[in-house]
């Protein structure tokens, strides 16, 4: 297959494409839920899909790592059997923005690290990803450019870019090739289409700029100086410790593991559920000692897990700039504001050193 394999999907054929994909298996896409909220849900027709949408309430991680998933099934008693299981189904996801594709890339790294998480990896292998480019900002909360997630950087099988009359479609993988082949609604792209894409990207580069005034290469170093920053204390006073920010984050993957027996007490499951480092009992041990008692420490931990720790471990930020944490925060804690505060404080400290 050619490395750069571009096709065209005319807008009037989009309906046929969606129908053909949804007939083959489960198709999931962003759907409007009212009040400018969107969610990834199963669709069967193009009319249900929102082609222009702000990041959905929950990110794509809900398909890769469901809120609740069974790890073990067991029966109790002398002849008890324990089986490790994974619940999965083939899914095609349409309309993933570049920030959400970056989020999945982050999760892929985490769950492929040894010891590998077979539940995640088994499910991942059954999911096809079709990206959709943002030609402009979704809203004022995004900071995707800062974290290098505003332009497509892989992590998809097919990638759609809306160019008005048609979509230009980049087919990246064999799985993607099979999808477009089965749909049969695509035409070959010629150089004029490619030029239009280039023109759009040039225009896009003018729109997208670092959303906070810092060179992203300086961010890890800035965080190294910020462990005792004033801003954490401020967040301590505002944060409600509700865990919304981590639930909606595309790269938060902390979980709890629990057991559940059925009413007969003979069968049960061990399952994992999303958890949050923002909740008070998260780092508490049974003896009562809580190793991250203060909200300031918990909020700080969240920011460091996005901007500092993964840089050493995975050579990238775990913030994808989607803005969900800011949109969802009941206390109006804004990621961009926090970063701005850190920049200011960090600069003050550097100046003081010199003076």
């Amino acid at each position, binding site marked *: 297959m050619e490395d750069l394999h571009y096709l065209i999907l005319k807008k009037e054929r989009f309906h046929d494409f969606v129908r053909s994909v949804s007939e083959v298996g489960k198709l999931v896409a962003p759907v409007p839920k009212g009040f400018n909220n969107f969610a990834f849900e199963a669709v069967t027709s193009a009319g249900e899909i929102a082609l222009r949408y702000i990041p959905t309430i929950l990110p794509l991680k809900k398909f890769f790592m469901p809120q609740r998933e*069974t*790890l*073990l*099934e*067991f029966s*109790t008693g002398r002849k*008890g059997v*324990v*089986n*490790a*299981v*994974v*619940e*999965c*189904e083939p899914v095609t996801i349409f309309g993933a923005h570049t920030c959400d594709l970056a989020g999945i890339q982050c999760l892929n790294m*985490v*769950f492929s*690290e040894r*010891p*590998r*998480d*077979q*539940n995640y990896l*088994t499910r991942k292998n059954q999911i096809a990803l079709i990206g959709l480019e943002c030609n402009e900002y979704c809203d004022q909360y995004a900071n995707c450019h800062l974290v290098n997630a505003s332009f497509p950087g892989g992590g998809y099988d097919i990638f759609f870019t809306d160019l008005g009359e048609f979509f230009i479609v980049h087919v990246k993988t064999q799985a993607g090739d099979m999808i477009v082949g089965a749909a049969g609604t695509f035409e070959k792209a010629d150089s004029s289409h490619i030029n239009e894409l280039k023109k759009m990207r040039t225009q896009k580069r003018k729109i997208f700029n670092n959303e906070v005034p810092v060179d992203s290469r300086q961010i890890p170093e800035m965080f190294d100086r910020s*462990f005792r920053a004033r801003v954490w204390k401020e967040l301590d006073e505002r944060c409600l410790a509700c865990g919304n920010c981590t639930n909606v984050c595309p790269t938060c*993957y*902390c*979980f*709890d*593991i*629990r*057991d*559940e*027996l059925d009413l007969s*007490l003979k069968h*049960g499951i*061990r399952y*994992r559920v999303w*958890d949050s*480092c923002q909740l008070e009992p*998260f*780092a*508490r*041990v*049974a*003896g*009562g*000692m809580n*190793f*991250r008692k203060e909200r300031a*420490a918990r909020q700080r*931990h969240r920011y*460091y897990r996005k901007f*500092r*720790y993964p840089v*050493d*471990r995975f050579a990238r930020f775990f913030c994808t700039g989607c803005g969900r944490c800011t949109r969802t925060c009941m206390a109006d804690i804004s990621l961009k504001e926090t970063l701005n505060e850190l920049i200011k404080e960090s600069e003050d400290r550097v100046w003081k050193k010199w003076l």
Partner: protein
Amino acid sequence: MEKVVIKDSAYRLRKAKILHTKKLTANEKFFEIALADGELLDHEPGQFVMISLLGIGEVPISVSSSPTKRESFDICVRAVGKVTRSLHKLKAGSEIGIRGPYGQGFPIQILEGNDLLIVAGGLGIAPLRSLIKYVIDNRRDFGKIHILLGCKEPKELLFSDELDEWNSRADLYYACTVDRADPDWAGNVGLITTLIPGVDLDPQRTFAAVVGPPVMYNFVIKELLAKGIPERQILLSFERNMKCGNGKCGRCQIQNLYVCQNGPVFNYERIKNLSEAF
């Protein structure tokens, strides 16, 4: 939604049987456990296992026996939560599930040929007993051995019969103290830090292994540094909440480190600047 059985899940359990239990104190109980089919646990001193009671949950517990004991392994469990309280109710013959061993234990290969100062506070003796027993079984490979033990009251002393044996051995130095004495106590009274200055050691060739409650670390480390033991030769083991043991669930993180994978044993030099550690 299809359900597939997977063979290589990190959450699958190894079957094990409780061979023998013994009440050590009002809250702590000793268990000897054997893996089914005569499997070997193959752990290192300082590593931990996830103990699983189906339908109740899992807990991380340090292994208390030396790897030189091959046919079974020991754990010492304080009843503090749902799982540990349920575990206390189990008798010999009961079946449990095991995952692990997990984590980085004490670096035995590096410790060999050096002197050891072992500092155990309270339940800290549980993981350290694994190291002590290993060292005693391989006594020739180590230099001087000092064992310092401390706990709140005499009635909380764990493994008291073994302590007498260690105390009577001529090839190691042993001292024990309690914070508060009772009328029958004839030994040292005071915090464990009061025992450190009296130890005659060569700091350059001494490795300290310290395990105890969080409050103990700062004070003990100060004394050890005052003795001249280099930072990288001070080994500490941390307790944290854990759900997975695979460096994923996030509960045991100390800043950028996962206690379950990078620890639970760390050298002081590596973690001295991590404020979440202390």
